[in-house]
């Protein structure tokens, strides 16, 4: 069902992964700034928790990136085989997230987590066969 050339296929897959990584890192940073949602919900209820989340500008920027990723994925799925688009963009997103989480979120991406990212990335790619 591939309707477009190789360059356009990979350009859309990379666009899906790039916007997904931006969305994941921005929302993860926002959630970390906001704090434990379970605790916020215990103090100010569900409304308070929702208000805390949606009033964060970083979160809103993250959601915008995720929305961009979602529409790029819909566009990609209609032109490229699911068996290529889904695992390829997911694998790229996993590796991109590990790198971006280390750089921007200062997460402790130790050998265990690098290995996990690599294994998941390879596993997702193998599922496409």
């Amino acid at each position, binding site marked *: *069902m591939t*309707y477009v050339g190789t360059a356009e296929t990979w350009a859309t897959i990379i666009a899906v992964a790039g916007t997904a990584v931006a969305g*994941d*890192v*921005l*929302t*993860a*940073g*926002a*959630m*970390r*700034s*906001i*704090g*434990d*949602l*379970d605790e916020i919900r215990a103090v100010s209820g569900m409304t308070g928790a929702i208000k805390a*989340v949606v009033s964060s*500008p*970083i979160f809103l*920027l993250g959601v915008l990136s995720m929305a961009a990723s979602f*529409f790029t994925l*819909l*566009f990609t*799925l*209609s*032109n490229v085989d*699911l068996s290529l688009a*889904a695992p390829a963009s*997911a694998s790229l997103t*996993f590796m991109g*997230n*590990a790198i971006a*989480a*280390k750089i*921007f*979120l*200062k*997460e*402790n*991406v*130790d050998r*265990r*987590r690098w*290995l*996990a*990212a*690599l*294994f*998941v990335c*390879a*596993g*997702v*790619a*193998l*599922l*496409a*066969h």
Partner: protein
Amino acid sequence: MKHTLTPERWLLLVAVMLTASVGDTLLSHGMAQVGPVSLAHLGLLFFAMKNPWVITGILCLLGFFASYLTALSWADLTFVLPSTAFGYVVVALLSKFWLHEQISIYRWLGILFIVCGVGFVANGPSRTEHADHPGVELDRLV
């Protein structure tokens, strides 16, 4: 660093995993019905929003988003993400034992890789504790 998660938190990670994979499957089924969308006909994407499979998929993904955000409020991104990948394993196993689809040796190998990857992070700490204000790097960007 927190090394253990409560049963409720593990359950939430299972919800993250299941809603993501089921939502994606529903979306893919719906988009297959809608047909190819080209750059010249991007309006078709809005038409796709009327497809019941796409709507159910989006509802599932909304559930995923709520549980994913909650998980991110107490765990690292690099801890939560592999658990979403575990959803691929669930879909593969469902298709084998429920839909009786054939699973190639490559897919079994892929499943093994993902299980190993998830095992690596599941055994480690869920959160990097920062001495300074968390999320400070992103605050500077906005």
